[in-house]
């Protein structure tokens, strides 16, 4: 009986425009969901158009025009200087230590290894209680590493000088998400960690107490990557997700301050330009793009007909002139950021390149792959 009433009432609502129905008039005075949503929708569309117009007004020069005055780059010969073998399964993530030679890497089999990449010695190894450790990070002091993955947590392991010490004993669980951890990064000190997760959120945590300091909501799907801004204020970070959006967040307020949605597929990796005024992103649509934060728009697309498979990770060289991209077709493409051309293509991995980072002093870059190895190239 209720259903009958409901259906007839709906019928009245749908004909609310007709003034003669007394019931419809009553309904018109209350909330009419469909109409108000339509109004909101058109308002948001209008605002979006206005934003585009504002952006277009400032669009007075293209990157390649600026690049015309700059000399082109010469030929590059980048050789593999070290191959780090020791993981028993796909390498998923890696990070450099600030001492420019140590590396932490994590893999699908749950192992997290700290290497001195210069001598290729393994210094520490930790076995996580879960597989698919998708995120790992080195603390700025060099005294700890953080990692996490399918266990939905981010744990911090303090490193020790004693090689025989069991690091798992001092492990500290810091972050708790409701789904897998996709990326983590320490802020300017060992005391705070920023994490992103498959549950669609990013979060800032206090390491000592495990307290959640700030959470960042706004992505409509899994967040896959994040990077902290290298600015003097150090208050913002960018995240990329499966909703094809790259969002810039204010760490203090938790607000999303800028958003870019130009990719056609999942964004696998984001990295700030060294000055903090721009950032690059790599995506499954086989392109890498450069976004200008101050002009609030995308300024370059790095793609080629022959590059068909997605970019899994990107990083800049020290000056920002080169952009290294690791791709799912086992190659690494090196792009001239200014001119938009590909400078070099590097082979050597026998499976997807899953992670790529340039060392802190820019002397080399390391790529980790699903072929179980890491390669340091310069």
């Amino acid at each position, binding site marked *: 009986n209720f259903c009958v009433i409901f259906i007839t009432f709906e019928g009245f609502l749908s004909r609310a425009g007709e003034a003669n129905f007394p019931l419809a008039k009553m309904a018109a005075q209350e909330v009419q969901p469909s109409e108000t949503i339509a109004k909101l929708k058109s308002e948001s569309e209008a605002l979006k158009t206005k934003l585009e117009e504002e952006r277009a007004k400032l669009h007075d*020069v293209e990157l390649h025009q600026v690049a015309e005055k700059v000399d082109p780059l010469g030929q590059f010969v980048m050789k593999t200087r070290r191959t780090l073998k020791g993981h028993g399964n796909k390498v998923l993530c890696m990070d450099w230590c*600030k001492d420019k*030679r140590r590396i932490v890497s994590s893999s699908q089999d749950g192992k997290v290894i700290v290497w001195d990449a*210069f001598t290729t010695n393994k210094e520490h190894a930790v076995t996580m209680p879960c597989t698919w450790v998708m995120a790992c990070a080195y603390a700025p002091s060099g005294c700890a590493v953080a990692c996490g993955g399918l266990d939905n947590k981010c744990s911090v392991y303090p490193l020790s000088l004693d090689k025989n010490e069991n690091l798992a004993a001092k492990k500290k669980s810091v972050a708790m998400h409701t789904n897998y951890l996709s990326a983590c990064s320490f802020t300017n*000190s060992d005391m705070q960690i920023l994490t992103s997760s498959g549950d669609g959120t990013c979060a800032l945590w206090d390491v000592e107490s495990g307290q959640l300091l700030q959470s960042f909501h706004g992505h409509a799907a899994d967040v896959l990557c994040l990077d902290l801004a290298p600015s003097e204020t150090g208050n913002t970070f960018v995240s990329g997700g499966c909703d094809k959006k790259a969002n810039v967040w204010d760490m203090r307020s938790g607000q999303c301050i800028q958003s870019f949605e130009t990719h056609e597929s999942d964004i696998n990796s984001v990295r700030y330009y060294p000055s903090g005024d721009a950032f690059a992103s790599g995506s499954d649509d086989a392109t890498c793009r450069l976004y200008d934060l*101050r002009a609030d728009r995308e300024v370059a697309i790095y793609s080629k007909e022959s590059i068909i498979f997605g970019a899994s990770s990107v990083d800049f060289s020290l000056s920002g002139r080169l952009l290294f991209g690791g791709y799912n077709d086992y190659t690494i493409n090196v792009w001239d950021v200014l001119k938009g051309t590909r400078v070099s293509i590097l082979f050597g991995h026998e499976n997807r390149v899953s992670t790529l980072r340039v060392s802190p002093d820019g002397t080399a870059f390391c790529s980790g792959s699903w072929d179980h190895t890491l390669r340091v190239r310069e």
Partner: protein
Amino acid sequence: MTIKFIRDHGQHYRPRMACLAKVEAMVLEMQDSKSGVKSSEQKLNITSIPHVVTGQDILAWIANHMKVDAQEAQTIGTMLVAYGFIYPLQDHKKLILKPDVSLYRFQTPYFWPVQKWKADNTDYAIYLAKRNIRKKGTLDVYEQEYYKNLHKWLNHKWDFIVMQAKEQYRAGKERNKADRVVFDCQERAYWIVHRPPPRTHSAMDYGVDRLIDPNAEENKTFDYYRRIIIFTQQAIMRSKVKSTVSLGAILKHMTTYKDHDPFLAPCLPSNPWQTDDSSYWDLNMRNVEIPTKMRVERWSFSFFELLNDPRGRTDFKVFLKKEFSGENLAFWEAAEEMKWGTASSISEKAQTIFKTFLAPGAPRWINIDGRTMGLTVKGLEHPHRYVLDAAQTHIFMLMKKDTFYRYLKSPVYKDIQKKALSPAPHNFTPSQLEQNAQNRKPGINPIIIWQQEEEERAKAAAAAGPIDIKKLMASKLDRK
């Protein structure tokens, strides 16, 4: 143990496989009778198989069509084989493209990876059962393993599976030999891709499932639109700059750092990764006595660079000491420590900072305008992480716009510029390089460096603390 939802390879909602659309288009072009790869009939074990292509022909076509060189064509070709669009006739378990006369065929679209149904275990069981029926003992070890496991898991439908296998086997027998062989090859190739032999990888392996379906329409409620409206309004109001300005800044950064980028200019004395000699790192240690010229030059690029480099910060402090204005930097450092420190230490640090820098008559009183001072002091009643932000920004800007430039013109900076080292580039002979490779130095563990710095910090803090006059006088009187 995580329970995995049964998902299809999900191509229709996981754009991770978005690349396959392009690949499909390319493969169709390759099969074009006029402009595609030339194919021929080949004999394979007495049967004649049509439309067979050689590896090198495929590579040549790709290189020509995509205008790439041989190595890149090889990469693309290998991906085509790895995804199952092309399959090898010989050595069928190794999914790579060989640049020689090895034979390949194009996979039928029915078995392409973009089809919207997943490679079901039931289908695999039927396939293995069929091969078992045809000729016992043809299954490889890993396939037998699979077969055993499937028999266990799918025991409840095993009769159905066996029946299906028999049906398919019978239907297959009714086809003519050539068709049967072709179909068998196709099916076998399909299963190699979707159930790879051990110690090989499958291109269908994509990692962890995404949690949220990105193509699912987000519930467009009031909140959804209201959020968009607020965000867009704020975005419109935010100040933006013209592209000439922002792109110019990006270009300027590149030009300034061009000579400091080890990929663009050689680092002196040599790149440790190239020559296995770690002098470059030794010369640029955190607290080396005499820095290199490049490092000193970098300090002049921006105040941020100077502060970020511990050696630069030390030099800046020397300058500030001469100017008797060290309290600004000390305040900034203390505020940074509070901002990035542990949550539990915030109130304690806030107290110390107030007593040392902000209280009237404080020993290291900083000079900020009245309004900021008032806001900060008020905020300190209930200290939180960012309570000193306003004051800190003010002080930072002061140092950046005034003190920094005076530092660059000061005798302290000019002095360090003169003293700075300019190491000569290394010129190792091949035998020396080999020697270096064998004698790579392990370097100092960062934990040790951190401990040393902690000790220094503690000493500095003790020295900067307020001096107890009574104790001092008491010790002096004692001596008298």
